[in-house]
């Protein structure tokens, strides 16, 4: 299996390389001068020449590509043209927001989607089944941003002054600050560098950070802010997972060994959860993998609606502002995420179904 993993990782290099080149080319195809986009239409030729010199934009395109590739291999994504800050630093600031949102959305999708699918399959053609499947069909057809806006309207305005009120935007309420866990624990951490980046990344996962430091006030605040965006983002994966679980379970429940298990006198609970679900998991896991990838696209819209400073919103802003280094870095990170998730899905097959041998 280790051999398989290594081979898979190696095999994904050409695709990653293709993505690097494609983003580079695509970013440069975007019409308009980054100088004018950043410094304004009135920027003089001299100022723009200096600007181009500073960001290496005056070099031939293949030289730029070469420099860029070399830098990426060293983990250096350059400096954002718009913010004049290292892209890696911005990445560490922004990525945790999206990761937290994505994890929360996926958790909701799994926790609701899989049981809903199982119940639907067991009680096939019942009222419950019909309601679940109608709900799932509506769920996949809903625009994420519309649902987000409607949820915000309902929970923040209609339910105002009730205990069910939820904030419509942001990650934390004004005035609430998060103390990084390494400061709470009194760790001495380096000023900068890789490890500091990792620690900062973890500290910016507000839920996790407040959980391990036991700061319940921040935890509750972060959680209430996360509920609506996570709910909006989770609907599509939830619906797809519920549908897939139902069809996969129906497929398995017809099989002979399920009848045998029941004939042996096993409890229905054991038959469903141990015998049926385990064997129905394979297509479900595959769908989950695909949906994790789609979360990034949904994040662009969800983050825009809920005013979250994550990967999706910055990527959208960067594309419109022609901030090449940000576009390249964030796309590469998303693409690596895709590759890793696909690998994990493939590896999980072995655990779900021991008959599968990865070679």
């Amino acid at each position, binding site marked *: 299996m280790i051999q398989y993993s290594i081979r898979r990782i190696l095999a994904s290099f050409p695709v990653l390389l293709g993505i690097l080149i494609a983003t580079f080319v695509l970013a440069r195809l975007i019409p308009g001068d980054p100088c004018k986009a950043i410094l304004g239409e009135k920027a003089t030729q001299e100022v723009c020449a200096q600007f181009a010199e500073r960001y290496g934009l005056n070099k031939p395109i293949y030289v730029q590509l070469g420099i860029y590739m070399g830098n990426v291999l060293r983990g250096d994504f350059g400096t954002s043209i718009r913010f004049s800050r290292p892209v890696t630093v911005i990445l560490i600031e922004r990525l945790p927001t999206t990761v937290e949102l994505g994890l929360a959305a996926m958790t909701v999708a799994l926790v609701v989607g899989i049981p809903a699918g199982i119940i639907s399959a067991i009680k096939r053609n019942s009222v419950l089944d019909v309601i679940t499947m109608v709900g799932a069909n509506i769920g996949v057809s809903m625009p994420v941003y519309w649902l987000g806006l409607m949820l915000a*309207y309902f929970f923040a305005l209609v339910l105002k002054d009730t205990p069910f009120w939820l904030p419509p935007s942001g990650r934390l309420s004004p005035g609430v600050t998060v103390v990084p866990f390494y400061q709470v624990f009194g760790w001495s951490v380096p000023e900068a560098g890789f490890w500091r980046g990792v620690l900062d990344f973890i500290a910016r996962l507000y839920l996790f950070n407040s959980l391990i430091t036991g700061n319940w006030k921040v935890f509750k605040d972060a959680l209430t802010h996360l509920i609506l965006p996570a709910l909006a983002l989770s609907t599509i994966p939830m619906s797809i997972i519920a549908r897939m679980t139902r069809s996969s379970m129906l497929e398995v429940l017809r099989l002979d060994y399920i009848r045998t298990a029941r004939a042996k006198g096993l409890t229905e609970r054991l038959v469903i959860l141990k015998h049926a679900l385990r064997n129905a998991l394979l297509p479900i896991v595959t769908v989950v993998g695909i949906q994790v990838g789609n979360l990034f696209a949904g994040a*662009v819209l969800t983050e825009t609606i809920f005013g979250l400073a994550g990967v999706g919103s910055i990527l959208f802003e960067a594309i419109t502002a022609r901030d090449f280094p940000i576009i390249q870095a964030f796309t590469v990170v998303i693409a690596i995420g895709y590759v890793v998730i696909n690998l994990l899905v493939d590896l999980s097959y072995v655990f779900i179904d021991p008959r599968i041998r990865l070679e």
Partner: protein
Amino acid sequence: MASTSVPLGSSSVRDYRANSLWRLTLRRIFRQRPAIIGMTLLGLLVFCAVFAPVIAPYDPEAVLIGIEDVRKREPPCIHLLGCPKDRPQHLMGIDGNVRDVFSRIIFGARISLFIGITTVSFAIIVGTILGAISGYVGGWVDLVIMRILDVLLAFPSLLLAIAIVTVLGRGLQNALLAIAIVSIPVYARVVRASVLSVKESAYVLASRALGGSHFHVLLRRILPNAIPPLIVQGTLGIGTAILDAAALSFLGLGAQPPTPEWGTMLGTERNQVFTAPHLVFFPGLAIMVTVLSFNLLGDGLRDAIDPRLKQG
């Protein structure tokens, strides 16, 4: 075996024709409740789109200042639901530019259906050509085409569409092209899989042996196999295309105001959700119903064409 031969024109041949794959499929579709609901909704939408000028009480782009006594972002006024008779009736209210929302929604059906059908048709044509060449020729041609499509698939489709629109420039036409481009890989894969599954079949080889050109064999013998999965994928794809196009317009990259496009309508009024929720609610509902109708129809078609893929 000799006893199975049937003289042409006999009743058995007619029975066979009556039960051809397409007729069977059509009959199966009409037995599926979701597909029927999908078709009904779709029929309603097509009706709205075709007869929009008759159904809509106002011009979708007409500003009603000075024509009627209405305010900006006025909520819906429905006489049947108790709105005073002396007030002008506006089923879905008035938007930020003092236009009738209901008329805009009705005209929006034209744009959305147009978006869905054109993007998917384009993607199917290009995808079929690429998939067919890839599967039929094989070798390095297959490798190169599929790797390029893999790179396309590695991007979240909406982000890729955003990037393409930024390259091409804002506007509905470019948004359509962007969405068509990002959906090509799906169709190319479907066609390639169909081609690969029958490429070595005896009847294909026989057609070649009888002197059929590569083009003839591919077009007449192999590609018809790809039609059923393409129809299913295409119907489901229309829903996705409409959703993506609305998302692009919502972000300000697709159709530009004053076009009565649902995503644009939602996007321009999104900050008013707390003061005038009807301006966000109705366009979103319209998008949802349209996408739902295509999804239901697509699911029904899939179950009817290939019951093995039944999703329940």
